[in-house]
């Protein structure tokens, strides 16, 4: 099953299990089913609760918050995650704050889905990984779709939090298969964290969001075959708040597609430093895209976005000098 199909099945399950759940977004109705086909079939099956909306990310996110406030729940599809900036006020100043600013806990069951990431030539305003802009907001939890975790489980977890969540979905994942790991690596799951590796005592640990997992795995394979460097990859389904238990390793890397500056990796590094400082050979190394807009032309885009070769190079240089 491909990731997009798994997401689609997860939405079917969520709407089926929760009669108060609504899905709102631009162009989400059949036969189109959303810009990436993730909502296909939903409007036919749940016509009253799957609503197509005008191009109004701000208001649609507010409507979701209103539904949540009234005891329902809502999933909002933002066509491109870049446009989530238009919903920032509703998410940060209303939905997230409402959980606690009225003095007692107000359950706010809502999820904002954001297709993100580059590699498809959509250019500077349709290719970003804006995760970092949403980090550190009280009561706003961030998730990223992983090829190693069933999204039905992810939606159930997000809605059970009773606080707004943003789900980042790297667009390059949509056509990839779920749960596919090539030997010699094996896949294990520990709650919301997937672990891909060879051994319990790797040379290094790589923490990465689901979107870059395949790039990291390519780098891990090359490092193993060419340098005999053994890596373990951890893919947390929830990006924030950060909660990670690392296997013992002296070197830790964080890989993400977001551009340099104020990154998710910096937040992960802070948590790792506080918890594992004594076991580390040095500070956590951050691997991310360049400090740049994301160009459209493929040769320029490749120069900016983090790829397998950069991951391989940085890890080799860090471990081998």
């Amino acid at each position: 099953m491909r990731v997009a199909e798994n997401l689609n099945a997860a939405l079917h399950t969520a709407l089926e299990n929760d009669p108060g759940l609504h899905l709102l977004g631009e162009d989400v109705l059949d036969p189109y089913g959303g810009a990436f086909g993730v909502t296909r079939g939903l409007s036919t099956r749940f016509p009253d609760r799957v609503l197509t909306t005008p191009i109004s990310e701000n208001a649609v996110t507010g409507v979701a918050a209103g539904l949540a406030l009234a005891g329902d729940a809502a999933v909002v599809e933002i066509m491109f995650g870049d446009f989530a900036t238009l919903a920032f006020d509703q998410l940060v100043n209303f939905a997230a704050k409402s959980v606690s600013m009225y003095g007692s806990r107000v359950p706010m069951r809502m999820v904002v889905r954001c297709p993100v990431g580059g590699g498809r030539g959509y250019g500077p305003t349709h290719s970003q990984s804006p995760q970092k802009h949403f980090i550190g907001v009280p009561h706003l939890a961030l998730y990223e779709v992983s090829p190693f975790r069933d999204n039905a489980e992810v939606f159930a977890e997000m809605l059970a939090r009773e606080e707004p969540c943003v789900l980042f979905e790297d667009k390059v994942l949509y056509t990839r298969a779920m749960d596919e790991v090539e030997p010699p690596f094996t896949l294990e799951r520990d709650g919301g964290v997937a672990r891909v590796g060879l051994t319990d005592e790797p040379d290094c640990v790589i923490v990465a969001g689901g979107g870059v997992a395949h790039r990291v795995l390519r780098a891990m394979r090359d490092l193993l075959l060419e340098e005999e460097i053994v890596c373990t990859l951890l893919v947390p389904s929830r990006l924030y708040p950060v909660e990670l238990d690392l296997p013992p390793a002296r070197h830790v890397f964080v890989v993400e597609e977001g551009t340099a500056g104020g990154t998710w990796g910096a937040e992960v590094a802070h948590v790792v430093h506080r918890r594992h400082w004594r076991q580390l050979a040095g500070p956590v190394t951050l691997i991310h895209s360049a400090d740049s807009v994301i160009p459209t032309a493929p040769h320029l885009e490749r120069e900016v976005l983090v790829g397998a070769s950069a991951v391989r190079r940085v890890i080799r240089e860090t471990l081998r000098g």
Partner: protein
Amino acid sequence: MTATAPEQEHAPPLEEPADEDLSLMLAIRAFELKLLELFGQGMLNGTTHTCLGQEYIPVALRPLLRPDDHVFSNHRGHGHYLARFEDPEGLLAEIMGRRGAVCGGVGGSQHIRRDRFLSTGVQGESLPVACGVALHLKRAEPGALACVHIGDGTFGEGGVYEALNLAALWRLPLLVVVENNGIAQTTPTSAAMAGTVAGRAAAFGIAHAFTDEVDLAVIRRRLAPGIAAVRQGRPLVVEFATHRLGPHSKGDDTRPAEVVERAREADWYRRYAAACPDPFARLDAAARTYIDEVARDVAGREPS
């Protein structure tokens, strides 16, 4: 667009209000004046936005709203809260961060939630949220509505138009109450709004009702049919041409003295005082005494 001052000399006499209504308006007035007094004594943290001059609006709307309706209030929301709950203690405790605060002192003056009442401090933010609540009501509790108080200044926010569009498209039971006091902080509406509130409602095919009255009975008769229609899924924008007597918050009133004086002449307080001096003086004294007692009590309490 400027709020029209009522033509006093030609204004028809006010209908005698029920004691209950008059008392409530006077309690809100006394409450707001008390806040300014407490602020002057350094007893309030942060800032405060009073609704001086606009107290009659939520009182006029009160019998037109039902307990199952949702009310969304804004930064100038003390009157909205008091008209719904008649709870000056809980509100003052919230503003002062004392025991009994309705939101534990976390929200303060402009972030209050109680039952189906909610206020937020960001302009234009509550309209989309109210659309979501109205969508829920339309399906789960037909007949109930979501009422949102906004000001003329709120029309600068794009979210207002996104929400009006959705309300019209989805036939939501949404009542938008525009308290057009002619000024946003220090900026006159004429410097911030091209066109009119009516024109903006018309652009979405949304009904618009206008009143520059302060007479509760007249306002209620005028608005009742439109508000009944809201319950059937026909959204409505009600525009009150009203007057802000005081500053936006504290010490930021830059209006010329004659403009403030015109607002004072149009004030419901003066007009009702003149129209019904007997119950007015008695009820006003009672309201002030009551609020004085509440303030003494709340100020003496431990922190929330």
